[in-house]
């Protein structure tokens, strides 16, 4: 029989590695195509509801912050709590003065 010119070790070697490469390419194709067409975030009902809650919380906080703003109401003035913090500090540093009224008990 005539020798088979197509049957060479190189051809066999090539075919093996091309076959393996094709195998791996199938897996890579699945991975790449899926990742290409997907959004980063996966749907989750809990996360969606969480986003709704965050929006609501921000609305509530904004509404509450609006109530605490600086307002003039006739003779009195409404100030945000933070404006009084320094005042509270000063009050803490003052020492109690003698009121002139005697105590009931003597502290020794």
């Amino acid at each position, binding site marked *: 029989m005539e020798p088979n010119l197509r049957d060479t070790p190189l051809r066999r070697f090539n075919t093996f590695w091309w076959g393996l490469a094709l195998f791996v390419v199938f897996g890579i*194709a*699945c991975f790449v*195509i*899926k*990742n*290409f*067409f*997907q*959004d*980063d*975030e*996966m*749907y*989750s*009902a*809990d996360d*969606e*509801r969480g986003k*709704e809650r965050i929006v609501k919380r921000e609305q509530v906080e904004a509404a509450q912050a609006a109530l605490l703003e600086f307002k003039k109401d006739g003779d009195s003035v409404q100030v945000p709590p933070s404006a009084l913090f320094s005042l509270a500090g000063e009050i803490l540093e003052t020492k109690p003065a003698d009121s002139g009224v005697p105590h009931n008990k003597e502290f020794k």
Partner: protein
Amino acid sequence: MTVKTFFYGLIASFGLPWLIMLAVPFGTMRSLESPRFDEVNDESTALYAPTRGGRTENGSLIYAQEGCAMCHSQVTRPSYAGNDVFREGQGGTKKNPERGDTRRITNAWDFSNGEKRAHIGESRIGPDLGNFGNRLDALASSENHKAAAAVGLELEKDGVPLTPMQIAVALGDKAFDKELYVYKHLYKPRKENPTDKRQEKHWSVCQSNPQFFTKTGNYGQGAVDAVAVKCDKQVVPNDNCRAIVSYLINLKKDGAVPYAMQYSKDKKKAGK
């Protein structure tokens, strides 16, 4: 035909359907956008993102491993594909005390609540389980009514009928135990099912599931959730059983959907 053209042909003829039917829909459906209720038609602007109670993930895994999907489906098909939506109890119920007719087809958000795999099902040798939780609630409600009547409990207070929850609380120990009902069904399916009036034998062909139960010593007053006493041992459900039962009693797919997603002929806009 050369080998080269052969391979190009194969890649094209396989690659196109693979892309169109499988890879691309898989990627795009991963981040499904939640629809919103409509201010005009539904009088609400809330997001439609139904969640499900119970041990959904654990229970779903055990449901898969035990092969429940061989005999049970969990989908209500639209009318072009079947009569599912008209069957009482499958897609919802006609007689929901608060909402009336809740029967609807299943949508994609019914399946994205903790389950990793949608158990559409292989066949309906057993009944569809998509709304098993609802059917169980209805059964519990009717059993509690009967028990309340038997005990002589008042079913109204100041002219207002008591809610099912109030009746159950009032009955205390005598209230219908949903979990125990399902535990017993999983243990010996043909003993606890109500008999069909037209047939004499218990009709269920559900499998007995001894793997869900362990035997413990029979002492004291006995375990609350013991399904049987056998050879002086109590048969109690194990953790897998609790997980799958928790999953089953929370199977409900008849919640309200936005008007734009309702396909019933009798759909009504809110407020009308």
